[in-house]
């Protein structure tokens, strides 16, 4: 059926319900906004009941959540700072998902990326800061990329399940990091907190002008948009999605599945490795065990909540950043334990996963053909 609606501006002028063409064209997009939105509202409702059981007012809860996450300019910066690494680590799960792979080892790529970036900065101490910073970006991305490529290679050439191998690689990465930080790369002055030497104040990448938010946020948004374009608007991305849909069909039509897997895994790891580089160059200034803060694991949650869509990763990361930013205020004002924030994340996760069953089943969004 053809539609007489030329563009969204015209569509807005026409009553949607009266025009099945509008719904046929945009119903899918509306679904993608409406269903997760409803899931979120449902989850917040259930969490409100949970909090009420502890004798706290749900209205206070919602107010403090809003205030802590988005209520003031400071709260916004708090939220965005926490969201920045999550966008990058979420891509580490979302990109391989296009191929039907479940990679959950972003934390390992982050650590290796951080280690690689630090190493490069330490050997290039005399170079101009911009050169060092670019080298750190490259080293972080290559380090992280190779790390996840390892999981992809094990899957392609050895038939090892990539979910298990990428998870186990996290522990190997952590062991390598601890080994180097407590041994070869240790700054002798770091007595009670084994750390590498500092990369130097001049080599730090700093914050976005006018804010407290570091450049990791910009890197994340750029990486997410680039991933979206790659997956949905290039031949390579189309091939990846074909292989993700049916790997045998992809092989029959002559796609080089092995190459696709390795490339996508490299890009995925590179984005988590970049997150590690940013943690070093914008936050910690050196490598130590502080880097294993769990961003890689929260990234998995972000990717699944975003239904593996690279663009949706951005708002979801901001949402989770906001939840964690407001978590502190909930502890302080309502006396809730930290675990309550995890309960909320868990409830949201369950609601969003359960809401998957609703796609394509909401009659009025389908239009009539």
């Amino acid at each position: 059926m053809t539609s007489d609606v030329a563009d969204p501006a015209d569509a807005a002028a026409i009553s949607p319900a009266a025009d099945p063409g509008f719904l046929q064209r945009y119903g899918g997009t509306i679904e993608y906004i409406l269903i997760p939105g409803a899931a979120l509202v449902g989850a917040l409702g259930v969490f409100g009941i949970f909090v009420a059981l502890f004798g706290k007012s749900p209205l206070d809860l919602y107010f403090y959540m809003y205030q802590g996450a988005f209520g003031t300019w400071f709260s916004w910066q708090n939220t965005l700072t926490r969201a920045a690494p999550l966008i990058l680590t979420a891509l580490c799960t979302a990109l391989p998902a296009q191929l039907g792979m479940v990679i959950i080892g972003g934390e390992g790529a982050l650590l290796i990326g951080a280690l690689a970036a630090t190493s490069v900065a330490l050997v290039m101490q005399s170079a101009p800061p911009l050169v060092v910073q670019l080298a750190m970006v490259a080293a972080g991305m290559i380090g992280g990329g190779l790390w996840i490529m390892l999981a992809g290679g094990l899957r392609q050439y050895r038939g090892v399940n990539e979910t298990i191998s990428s998870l186990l690689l996290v522990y190997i990465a952590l062991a390598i990091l601890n080994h180097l930080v407590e041994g070869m790369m240790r700054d002798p002055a770091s007595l009670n907190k084994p750390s590498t030497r500092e990369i130097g104040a001049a080599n730090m990448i700093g914050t976005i002008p006018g804010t407290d938010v570091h450049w990791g946020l910009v890197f994340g948004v750029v990486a997410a948009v680039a991933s979206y374009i790659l997956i949905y608007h290039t031949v390579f991305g189309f091939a990846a999605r074909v292989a993700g849909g049916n790997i045998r069909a992809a092989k029959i039509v002559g796609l080089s599945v092995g190459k696709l897997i390795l490339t996508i895994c490299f890009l995925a790891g590179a984005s988590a490795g970049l997150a590690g580089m940013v943690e070093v160059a914008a936050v910690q200034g050196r490598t130590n065990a502080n880097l294993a803060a769990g961003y890689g694991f929260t990234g998995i949650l972000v990717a699944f909540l975003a239904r593996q869509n690279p663009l949706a990763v951005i708002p979801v990361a901001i949402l989770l950043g906001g939840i964690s930013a407001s978590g502190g205020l909930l502890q302080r004002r309502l006396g809730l334990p930290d675990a309550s924030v995890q309960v909320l994340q868990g409830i949201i996760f369950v609601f969003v996963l359960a809401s998957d069953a609703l796609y394509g089943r909401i009659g009025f969004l389908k239009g009539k053909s």
Partner: protein
Amino acid sequence: MDIGRISRRHLLQGSAALTLGTAFGARSAVAAETTIGFIYVGSRDDYGYNQAHAQGAAALKKLPGLKVVEEEKVAETDAVEKTMESMINLDGATLLFPTSFGYYNPHMIKMANKFPKLRFEHCGGLWSDKDPKNAGSYFGYIDEAQYISGIVAGYSTKTGKLGFVAAKPIPQVLRNINAFTLGAKLANPKATTQVIFTGDWSMPVKEAEATNSLIDQGVDVLTCHVDGPKTMVENAARRGAMVCGYHVNQSPLAPKAYLTGAEWNWEALYPKFVKMIAAGEAIPNFYRGGLKEEIVKCSPYGEVVSAEARKHADDIKAKLTSGDYVIFKGPITDNKGKTVIAAGTERGQKDPELEKMDYLVEGVIGATS
């Protein structure tokens, strides 16, 4: 809901010097509602490191005119910077206690530079002249209390084998192991301490394995230096071994097996800090002390501790409290036969050489790397 709290922000920043005296030697007493922020890396009821600080915070809550806000499970990344800022901006905190080692540099230093009129007190860091004047670091020579535990353990063991579950071979931990062993040898010159390093501060599974393995090898008194001694204490008691606690009093977990323990005395120090500020005295930026200064203390003896052990331990405790006893007194050899403190050399509690300790004394079974 008090929305008004936010609008107080600017007012508070402007008058911060008035509310809590800082290094500038402010005159005024603690204002009507002074807010103090506490930040913990783990959960505040962990029967360990964080609980010890939470007990100190609880002691402050009892003082009039003080409001204490707390946040637990804050990672050692920029998350802690945002938590500090949130306490300052949204709660009006003017004195902050970020209590975990990894919060110090760069995070707390950055915040102290950003809010020069507020006071930051850190547990465990090594403040130096380069650091901001409104930042301070305090810590206790808890090896003195471990020495007392060692004496009690030396009398209580039947096999002569003591066990130590330790996190990492860093100076603070090695100093505790060595003091414990030297104390035990006062009571029983043939006593040995077998040490197992778990590799990190909170590894409950490895801590339980280490406890079981030590007991399987004939160890009958155990102590530890990890963030949460609960795992070791409960497992050892279940296996019929005796324990010396760490961080806080763990006797409620194992009343029959508990001999004594090395505890922090933050509930004495924190009110002291607040009173110093109220009186207009400057808190030294580098603040240290042991039993004498009431920064550490020993748990009350358990029922099974013999009269002989109590007498010897009380005697040494009295000497340490009066300040005329040196634990690290030459000649001391390490467990590889090398002399580490020459005969005639006394290394008192404040000796900077002890902060760099990298050996295990004779009588310790184990290696630092």
